[in-house]
């Protein structure tokens, strides 16, 4: 062996030793993995991702308030069945429905130790009037509903609203109350740092947030006024694939579609939440662009000529339902079973069209679900003389077209849970020019408009139910929009790890979602 070869060999050997040593050194320097419990209580791990700072103005998306909802409290809390007392232990509404007096709890403290008072509540409602939040609970028909908010004493606050309404209590109750001592004098709420902006009275306090890594940690607040937390902390951590992360035990909860749910069903290690049919896909007609759609028989022909059972079977994979004719889903407390459905019936559709033929453009978002819906509709409607041209565009381009009203038909997904005031905003609005808020461009129905106004202003629930029932029957007859199908989305978790999950469904979110009461002891108010 030559001298040079010997040197080479030694060099290779040395390099290998150094590489192995570096790897070993790094391996032994690895930090300890995050623990899954603290003080006997579990630490819950959820899939992270940056949705903005957990503060009233920091949230990036209106649909992702889970973090700030744990930090902040509203006057009332919504559980699965309706409102329950929260920061307000009781309330009175004047007979004319214009004044709300809330009696607040004593001995409530902010996370920074300052005492909470009625001044904070009054301040919150006045502040949000000047500085609108990205998510707008207090806007109804483009008006801020709270005209005046004043503290009568330390634990009593009086709000005056712009009109009597059955939906205002829940809206007012859901607003997260912010501390006056932090926000008073703030002129640019978007620039308040999360350490200050995330001080609330809620059961969890802000501990860590990294927008870059999409991580959040909220720890149980020992000074919380209400029910005890049953978890030590909630952590949102970055995971690439949620299903893989759940399988490996990295996260504790995932939302699954029907195919995946089958994997966990029947396995005692997992539990699947009972989902609601409260989100779905709808077809929107543009009556201004295509005046022939003002003839309701054509819209009814769409309803008869669209095979919605096929959509449930092929797209929702059986875990869903044909959209209800009156828009309110069958498992919603305000559902009216008398709203006549439209079974798939091509003969009936042809009869309604009476040999007329039409060609429409249908606008879909460029996701597979909506494109498939459009294509399925195209196939069956072609048989009754309606030709569809599918236009699929990215979300923002689609929105601009919805806004300018330059479309014939559009598909989009929305929620049908929560308060059914959406019957009014979608079908009972005065003639509208844009289709972003779920309404039908160019559609006006006098009966629905007046019933909608009545339902908004009726304070008696039984009377309101009668009005909403009537509205559903008119909607079923009129078909101002066609609710195609709704889907059930389930959550899967390991009960041995944490069994307290509670889910509720609301209008804003497209799915039912886990919420604050999941992490607290049972609470009857």
């Amino acid at each position, binding site marked *: 062996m030559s001298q040079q070869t010997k040197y080479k060999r030694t060099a290779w050997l040395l390099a290998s030793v150094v590489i192995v040593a570096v790897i070993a*050194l*790094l391996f032994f*320097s*690895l*930090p*300890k*993995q*995050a623990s899954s419990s603290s003080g006997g209580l579990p630490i819950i791990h959820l899939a*992270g991702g940056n949705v*903005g*700072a957990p503060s009233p*103005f920091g949230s*990036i*998306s*209106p*649909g992702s308030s889970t973090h700030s909802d744990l930090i902040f409290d509203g006057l009332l809390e919504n559980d699965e069945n309706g409102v329950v007392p929260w920061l307000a232990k009781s309330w009175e509404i004047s007979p004319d429905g214009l004044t709300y007096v809330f009696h607040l709890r004593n001995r409530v403290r902010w996370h920074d130790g300052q005492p909470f008072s009625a001044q904070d509540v009054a301040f919150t409602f006045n502040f949000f009037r000047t500085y*609108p939040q*990205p998510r*707008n609970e207090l*806007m109804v028909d*483009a008006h801020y509903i709270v005209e005046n908010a004043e503290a009568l004493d330390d634990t009593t606050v009086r709000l005056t609203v712009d009109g009597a309404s059955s939906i205002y209590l829940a809206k007012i109750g859901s607003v997260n109350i912010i501390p006056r001592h932090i926000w008073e004098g703030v002129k640019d709420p*978007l*620039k308040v740092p999360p350490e200050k902006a995330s001080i609330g009275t809620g059961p969890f306090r802000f501990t*860590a947030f*990294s*927008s*870059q*890594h*999409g*991580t959040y*940690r909220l720890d149980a607040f020992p000074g919380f006024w209400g029910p005890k937390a049953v978890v030590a902390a909630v*952590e949102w*951590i*970055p*995971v*690439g*694939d949620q299903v*893989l*992360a759940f*399988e*490996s035990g*990295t996260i504790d909860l995932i939302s699954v579609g029907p195919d995946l749910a089958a994997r966990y069903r029947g396995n005692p290690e997992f539990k699947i939440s009972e989902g609601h049919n409260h989100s779905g896909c709808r077809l929107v007609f543009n009556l201004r662009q295509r005046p022939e759609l003002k003839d309701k028989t054509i819209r009814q022909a769409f309803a008869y000529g669209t095979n919605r059972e096929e959509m449930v079977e092929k797209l929702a994979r059986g875990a869903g339902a044909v959209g209800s004719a009156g828009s309110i889903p069958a498992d919603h407390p305000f559902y009216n079973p008398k709203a006549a459905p439209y079974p798939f019936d091509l003969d009936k559709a042809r009869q309604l069209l009476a040999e007329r033929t039409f060609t429409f453009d249908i606008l879909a*978002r460029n996701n597979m679900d909506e494109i498939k819906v459009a294509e399925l509709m195209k196939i069956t409607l072609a048989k009754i003389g309606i030709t569809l041209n599918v236009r699929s*565009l*990215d*979300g*923002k*381009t689609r*929105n*601009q077209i*919805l806004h300018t009203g330059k479309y014939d038909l559009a598909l*989009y*997904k929305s*929620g049908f849970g929560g308060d059914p005031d959406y019957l009014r905003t979608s079908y009972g609005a005065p003639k509208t020019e844009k*289709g*972003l*808020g*779920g309404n039908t461009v160019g559609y006006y129905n006098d009966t629905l408009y007046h019933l909608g106004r009545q339902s908004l202003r009726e304070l008696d629930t039984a009377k309101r139910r009668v009005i909403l029932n009537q509205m559903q029957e008119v909607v079923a007859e009129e078909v101002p929009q066609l609710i195609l199908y709704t889907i059930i989305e389930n959550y899967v978790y390991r009960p041995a790890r944490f069994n307290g999950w509670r889910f509720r469904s609301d209008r*804003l979110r*497209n799915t039912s979602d886990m919420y604050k009461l999941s992490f607290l002891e049972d609470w009857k108010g």
Partner: protein
Amino acid sequence: MHIAEYALTLCLILLVNFGLPRMMPGDPFLNAEDDLDQPFAANLTTEQVAYFRAYYGLDKPLSQQFIGYFCGLLHGDMGYSIQFKESVRNMIFSRLPWTLFMVLASLLLSCLLGSWLGCISALHRTGSLDKALYTGMVLFSELPSFVVGLVLLFVFSVQLRWFPMGGGLSPFVPPGNPLSWLADAVHHAVLPVLALTVSRLSGFYLLARNSMMTVLSKDYVRTAWAKGLGAQRVLWGHALRNAMLPIITRVFLSLGGLFGGAVLVENVFAYPGLGALMGTAVGNRDYVLLQGVFLFMSFLVLSMNALADVLCRKLDPRLA
């Protein structure tokens, strides 16, 4: 001359970066009911949209917006992201090290490994080793990086549990010693780097193989063989230096593109890089963030081109 060219290109880029996002159809404030991942609710009133538009300075005429943007840049101010409500400069510079580390490490690995395999293939160009390598690499080149990433994630994170499920660092670990931080960062980067390396490998392999085959047929290589030099000496000492030119150029040119290519891998591993940020900025029409990210990437591509120019001249005096 070259400096003037680069300056002109930079000016054009500034204009395009400013204009292009605004020319795209769509508007950051126009949302529909199903836009739950968007910064603003669908039910904003016209006045509220006007308030937010004015807040981000989008109500001013375009010329004024451009002047503001340009003056801001001169002060190092890249604006405030509409979606994330954070300073764009901070967002870019906090994510840059992660992407840079991932991209450079994978580029280095794929370049070294790909070139080495390419050279071996070229040396055995008629043999079965070349055929096997060539077929394998062509098959590899068809694998999208996110598929490779998912397979790696499934095998090494779920099954073997050797690596974390995602992210750049272990969350909520109190700052310890720098070595432990480094170990954690490397531990999180292994799979993303591997996925990106695998997806880039065949490109370098094919280029090196092709380039090496051309060089190996040259007269001076035949002379080297005739002199009785060993295969190692001929290959690494004589041929490689000449075959390296296109490889070096490719390394630098692919640097700009790698940020785009890193998007999918960043998504699979929830890696805190720039690529994923750019994706969401486009989806949300976050003009301010788009301007910032595009500008930064253009600047990077330009400087890489300049660097490739200089290096190629050094390597091949004929180009000077």
